[in-house]
């Protein structure tokens, strides 16, 4: 993360390569403000993973353990899983490796015991789809947080400061007109065919208008940018030849269309 630039040293006015190298330096980054998110980042990996672990436990384990007809073993195992999560987060500072093992294996094993003791608790008649999906997300987040914990912030973060970057080229005048006109044309094409009632046909029309809209936008950009390109000495002759070729194709398309309508 990079802080605001007002604490950085000012770059030198001359940005030639040699002076750029001279200007390169590392300066301390401004201290980040105290936020709940920053505080969460300072927590250990076990404490971080305990948050989605608690969520997964609450959505998928505790309803099964306290469902109708669940044996006492399921309730004890569920409580043991909760205790392993909270306890591991509490002792993480003293024994981080053991705390991590207790958190992952403790919750995983006790949850398995609960599900084995109450096999019907996660069936489709007892667990609706929304809760099942949120439970899966909770377990996935717990696994991710346990396997790849967030990195701790360094005590004294450093930022590499060099000369300001220069753009290799600037946007020429008129380019925005081409791109804007292409975007308007692409948008206008999206207004066609909204009254189609058949879903498959409506989807086909939407996909087609989207594809041709993108093609129009790309072609308008190409035509706009081609104005600035350097051309060969024989460019005029080449352009005439290309124009005649495409004019012939256009006439051919018109003739085919006219023939089609005449025979229809």
């Amino acid at each position, binding site marked *: 993360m990079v802080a605001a630039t007002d604490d950085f040293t000012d770059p030198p006015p001359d940005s030639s390569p040699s002076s750029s190298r001279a200007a390169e330096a590392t300066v301390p980054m401004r201290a980040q403000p105290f936020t709940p998110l920053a505080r969460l980042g300072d927590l250990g990996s076990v404490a971080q993973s305990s948050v989605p672990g608690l969520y997964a436990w609450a959505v998928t384990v505790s309803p099964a353990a306290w469902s109708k007809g669940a044996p006492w073993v399921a309730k004890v195992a569920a409580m043991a899983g909760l205790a392993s999560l909270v306890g591991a987060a509490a002792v993480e500072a003293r024994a981080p490796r053991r705390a991590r093992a207790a958190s992952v294996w403790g919750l995983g094993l006790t949850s398995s015991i609960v599900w084995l003791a109450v096999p019907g608790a996660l069936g489709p008649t007892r667990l609706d789809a929304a809760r099942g999906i949120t439970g899966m997300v909770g377990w996935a987040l717990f696994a991710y947080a346990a396997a790849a914990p967030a990195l701790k912030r360094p005590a004294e973060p450093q930022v590499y400061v060099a000369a300001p970057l220069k753009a290799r080229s600037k946007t020429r005048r008129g380019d925005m007109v081409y791109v804007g006109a292409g975007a308007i044309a692409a948008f206008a094409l999206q207004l066609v065919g909204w009254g189609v009632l058949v879903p498959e046909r409506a989807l086909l029309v939407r996909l*087609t208008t989207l594809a041709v809209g993108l*093609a129009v936008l790309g072609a308008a950009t190409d035509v706009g940018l081609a104005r600035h390109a350097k051309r060969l000495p024989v460019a005029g002759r080449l352009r005439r030849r290309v124009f005649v070729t495409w004019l012939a194709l256009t006439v051919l398309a018109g003739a085919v269309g006219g023939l089609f309508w005449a025979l229809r």
Partner: protein
Amino acid sequence: MHAFDVIAVLMVVGATAAFGVGAGALARADDVVAAYWLVVGLVSLRGAVQIARSGVRG
């Protein structure tokens, strides 16, 4: 602006109109007409880019 650039712009405008007619025909389930106008639009669009870029160095 060069005359060929104007032609390229007009071809892009024509291609857009052809695409609009083709999409309208597609919505009416008139598939042959839709295919015709969409092909005309594609040919016109490709021609516009070819004319605009012909003779460019590199």
